[in-house]
């Protein structure tokens, strides 16, 4: 049976009832519009919130954790081999938190094709001296260039230039919260005390604000060499190696591999930040649930209108069948009507959804804790449009299927006799 004839008949039925058809199509349009706008906005928000942590977190962090010896003497004893032993006489020894042989590790990592880049880091516990009291804080010794390249460091330096860390000796970029408490302005010199009791003076060259208050109150940044000097350590002293991978999904597997290979501790981003993934997942789930609910409501609209149309068109269906159209043809005619509503309404919905996302994208959203964000975040992910399109067609197909089947089963004799 020729497709052209089917579409021809469908179109005539549609045009004869164009008002109802339009209402049905608007239902689909509305739901797809909301679906797209909602998902784009939610995904934008997710990216933003994830970015707060994930952008700045290494995919794999290599470090050396201070921990007790795995094998206590009693475990080595032949006699107690098969027993569960409680005697832990050997405490952690006075080990440094440094990674040994950092040069070799960094060389190996740089050669690994799966690695995008690495940034070494030192964390040092310090006290900031303010008048008579000391504030606890952490100074991160970083390679300013690598840190910016891989972890967008400059996004969070709200005043001053991050490269000053490298260019000005004994400089520090202070967390905004810590700086406020210390009344430290840019250009001021502050005094810190290290864990071992040494005092050192550092020049404030900028402020750092991550958007997470706990971090901004404690963390500050200095160059690697400044931090080494602060700790009285030699050149090779590194406590963390941050690895950024080309494919974040490889992180758990590679973390295990590196841990074995270099004999260090390694954490991957997925394990370290599982709670963020859960949050994103729930938000995404809610968006989909709302979007799909809207679509189902629109589907019922189509179902109703098609049922009504079939009721009105009983006579026409009977004539079509009496003159040689089969049940299958009639089924296809009404499915075509449903799908036309879905495709037309859906396409319009995708366009309007894009428009609405673009509008949301323009709405100012200024918050002190998110220095780089000026408007509401929107993720223009093409996948949402594909899903929206598929859903609109699938819903209208299902909404159209049963009425169409009903139409195809109409017995012309009953209709003709009924006249």
């Amino acid at each position, binding site marked *: 049976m020729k497709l052209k004839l089917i579409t021809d008949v469908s179109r005539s*039925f549609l045009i004869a009832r164009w008002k109802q058809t339009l209402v049905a199509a608007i239902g689909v349009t509305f739901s797809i519009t909301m679906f797209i706008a909602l998902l784009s906005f939610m995904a934008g928000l997710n990216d933003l919130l994830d970015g707060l942590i994930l952008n700045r977190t290494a995919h794999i962090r290599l470090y050396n954790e201070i921990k007790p010896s795995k094998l206590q003497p009693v475990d080595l004893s032949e006699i107690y081999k098969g027993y569960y032993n409680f005697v832990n006489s050997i405490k952690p020894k006075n080990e440094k938190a440094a990674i040994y042989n950092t040069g070799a590790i960094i060389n190996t990592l740089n050669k690994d094709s799966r690695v995008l880049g690495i940034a070494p880091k030192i964390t040092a516990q310090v006290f900031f001296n303010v008048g008579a009291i000391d504030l606890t804080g952490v100074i991160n010794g970083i390679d300013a260039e690598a840190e910016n390249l891989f972890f967008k460091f400059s996004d969070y330096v709200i005043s001053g230039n991050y490269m000053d860390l490298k260019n000005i000796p004994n400089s520090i970029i202070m967390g905004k919260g810590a700086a406020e408490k210390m009344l430290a302005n840019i250009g001021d010199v502050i005094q810190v005390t290290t864990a071992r009791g040494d005092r050192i003076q550092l020049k404030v060259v900028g402020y750092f604000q991550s958007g997470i208050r706990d971090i901004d109150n404690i963390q500050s940044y200095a160059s690697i060499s400044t931090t080494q000097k602060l700790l009285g350590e030699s050149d090779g002293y590194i406590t963390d190696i941050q690895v950024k991978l080309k494919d974040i999904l490889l992180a758990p597997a590679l973390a295990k591999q590196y841990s074995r290979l270099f004999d260090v501790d390694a954490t991957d981003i997925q394990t370290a930040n599982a709670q963020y993934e859960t949050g994103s997942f729930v938000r995404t789930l809610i968006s989909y649930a709302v979007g799909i609910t809207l679509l189902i409501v629109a589907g019922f609209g189509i179902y109703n209108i098609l049922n009504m149309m079939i009721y009105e068109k009983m006579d*026409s269906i009977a004539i079509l069948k009496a*003159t*040689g159209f089969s*049940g299958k043809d009639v089924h296809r005619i009404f499915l075509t009507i449903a799908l036309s509503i879905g495709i037309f309404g859906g396409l319009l919905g995708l366009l309007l959804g894009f428009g609405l996302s673009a509008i949301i994208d323009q709405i100012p959203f200024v918050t002190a804790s998110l220095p780089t964000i000026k408007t509401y975040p929107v993720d223009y992910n093409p996948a949402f449009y594909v899903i929206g399109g598929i859903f609109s067609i699938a819903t209208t197909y299902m909404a159209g299927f049963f009425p169409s089947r009903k139409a195809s089963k109409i017995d*012309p004799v009953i209709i003709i006799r009924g*006249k």
Partner: protein
Amino acid sequence: MKDKILDALKISKYFHDPATVKVIKEISFSVMKGEFVSIIGKSGCGKSTLLYILSTMDTSYEGELFLDGQSMKNRIESDLAKVRNEKIGFVFQFHYLLNEFSVLKNVMLPGLKLAKFTDKEVEQRAYDKLKILGIQSEALKYPNQLSGGEKQRVAIARSLINDPLIIMGDEPTGNLDKKNSEVVFHIFQELAQEFNQSLLIVTHDNEFAQKTNRIIEMEDGRIIRM
């Protein structure tokens, strides 16, 4: 001598609602090529029921039905639809045109469905059929702009579009005035005489029936005269 185009063999039909009633009782008869046959009988004697069976729209019956030598028993729905499309032209008492389509398109639809000719050819044929019925000037109007007699002529044009083996009519003049009834009768007569078209027309108009080649009279589900 002539080809048997329709052959009914002991056709019976029951209705089960409200009680089981046998409304068609072992009816057997045949229609030859070019014959103009009328079926008469009192209201309720089963004429329409029989015609729905003969036109393949009703499939729940006993007995055998042959159209063009082929049995219509145990054929699937789409097969029977094809038979109706190709071999049977049906004219109802009420006009039963599709109001969404122009007169021309109404006539064309069964032809487009058959797809034996191109769309252009079907259109030309539809014009030709409308001309036979003298209403080609109304081709581009819509059914609701026509009178009852004109509508019935459009329905006849539609029944002719695929050059059917047989035209069946269920009281096609039942809803028309005297003058229009005569017009329709003359059209049928002309089709039978000039185009050798076979016709099987149910009517309660005895005057109409007298002028046909053969009268089949029914009573209470049986043929009492033929």
